[in-house]
């Protein structure tokens, strides 16, 4: 006869299983209750006027359309720079660079950059873009700061997906007489598209949620501008507006309204990224 499991071991394993269960559920509960609290307090604030108008000091109403527009401008402009730069750098590191030490150095630098607190990016952005380059406090300076801040992440996620492209596919293309660029364009890039998309969406999330770095660089004006005009003038994004309404004006209702919109936006972005990974990540 085989020995049966001792009572002590049974109790032990039950204890640890339940401990881990508490940890898991605890984490989920914290995240869900924050979301729920914000949504419950914030959704009540949302109205057509709140979302689709600008604030009026005479009527004393608050509207977040300028902040919403600024957020969109910022994300679009920054992505337009981050994606080509980041993917290009990743392709260089993975496909062209023959100097392993150099690649390691660049990778290391990217890693360090991604660990720097965002307020430091804000400080540097303010000194370099706003003052040294003379962009003043403007959305353009904010965009450039976001580019610097998100570049490492973009490079990393593009690189990770480039590394997953099987050597056998590249060799297959080379063996048919394809040149390097042709191989990259037709084999490597399509295969790493899902990774790039995921990186892009993560960048979106980070930019939408960023406040510290933008307070210094993009400022906090609430006026409605066109894209080009907005880049040249100071403008608050949603997260910055949240800070301004809550801390400078003590208007927590408006802050919760914005928070609700931010949460909804970030959730949507996460769902989108999950969907893209499911849709394109399992092509093979």
């Amino acid at each position, binding site marked *: 006869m085989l020995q049966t499991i001792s009572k002590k071991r049974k109790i032990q394993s039950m204890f640890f299983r339940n401990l881990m269960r508490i940890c898991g559920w605890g984490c989920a509960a914290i995240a869900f209750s924050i979301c729920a609290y914000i949504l419950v307090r914030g959704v009540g604030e949302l109205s057509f006027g709140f979302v689709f108008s600008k604030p009026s000091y005479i009527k004393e109403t608050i509207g977040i359309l300028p902040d919403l527009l600024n957020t969109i401008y910022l994300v679009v402009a920054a992505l337009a720079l981050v994606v080509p730069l980041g993917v290009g750098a990743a392709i260089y590191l993975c496909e062209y660079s*023959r100097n392993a030490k150099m690649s390691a150095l660049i990778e290391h630098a990217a890693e360090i950059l991604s660990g720097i607190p965002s307020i430091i990016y804000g400080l540097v952005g303010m000194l370099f873009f706003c003052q040294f380059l003379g962009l003043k406090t403007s959305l353009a300076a904010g965009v450039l700061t976001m580019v610097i801040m998100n570049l490492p992440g973009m490079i990393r996620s593009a690189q990770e997906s480039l590394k997953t492209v*099987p050597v*056998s*596919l590249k*060799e*297959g*293309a*080379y*063996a*048919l*007489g*394809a*040149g390097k660029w*042709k191989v990259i364009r*037709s*084999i490597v890039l*399509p*295969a790493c598209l899902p990774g790039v998309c995921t990186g892009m969406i993560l960048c979106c999330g980070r930019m939408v949620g960023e406040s510290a770095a933008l307070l210094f660089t993009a400022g906090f004006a609430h006026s409605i501008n066109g894209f080009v005009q907005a880049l040249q003038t100071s403008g608050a994004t949603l997260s910055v507006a949240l800070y301004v309404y809550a801390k400078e004006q003590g208007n927590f209702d408006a802050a919760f309204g914005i928070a609700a919109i931010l949460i909804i936006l970030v959730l949507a972005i996460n769902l989108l990224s999950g969907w893209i990974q499911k849709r394109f990540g399992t*092509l*093979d």
Partner: protein
Amino acid sequence: MLTARNANYDSGCIHVENLNLWYSESHALKDICLNVPRGSITALIGPSGCGKSTFLRTLNRMHDQNELVRIEGDVRYQNQNIFDPHIDVSALRKEIGMVFQTPNPFKMSIYDNVAYGPKIQGIRKREQLDSIVIQALKDAFLYDEVADRLDQSASALSGGQKQRLCIARALAANPKVILMDEPTSALDPVSTHKVEELILSLKEKYTIVIVTHNMQQAARISDYTAFFLNGSLVEFSRTKEMFENAKDERTQNYISGRFG
């Protein structure tokens, strides 16, 4: 010139003279001298790590990407040394196609996989591409199985079909020589049989060099066999001759299964 299509002068013949290859410090190919006969199937056999795949991959310069590899000696194709810096490696690879150990169809449609080579060569006209793709698929015994789904992803095919697709892809580039690196080692017996039959049907039009560690396969399909051991070419002769009456004792031992 390599790019000239009408050069029937010695076309399809590869002459290897005193070929040496090093992976950084290790001497992987030692003084290989070998003439690949035209219009026939040459099998490269030998135990794992003997250099047969390494040798095969020098013939279309697949080592170019690897900076640790150093090559000395001559590989002459159409009377030109393929390592000559003036040679366009793309043109060389259009002449000398390759099929790999694991089927590696691109993540595109079946049609686009086969059209990949011709497109690189600048063929853009739809009718011309159509006829090349269909002919290549027919030559690879695959057309009937995929005729109604040419626009579907190649990843849905079975392993054997994928490998025949890869052969069709190589054929579509209109090569004179096809190098095959253990093309059936990842396939089941039925698929292997189909691919072997296909290879046999190709030798009328192409010169084929095939690496295999399956000696029965070498005996079944090849006209010539080269036996490699520890980076050296031990024996090269007609397959029948080698399997019935190997000159070198080491070849006899390997063929009779005493090692490897």
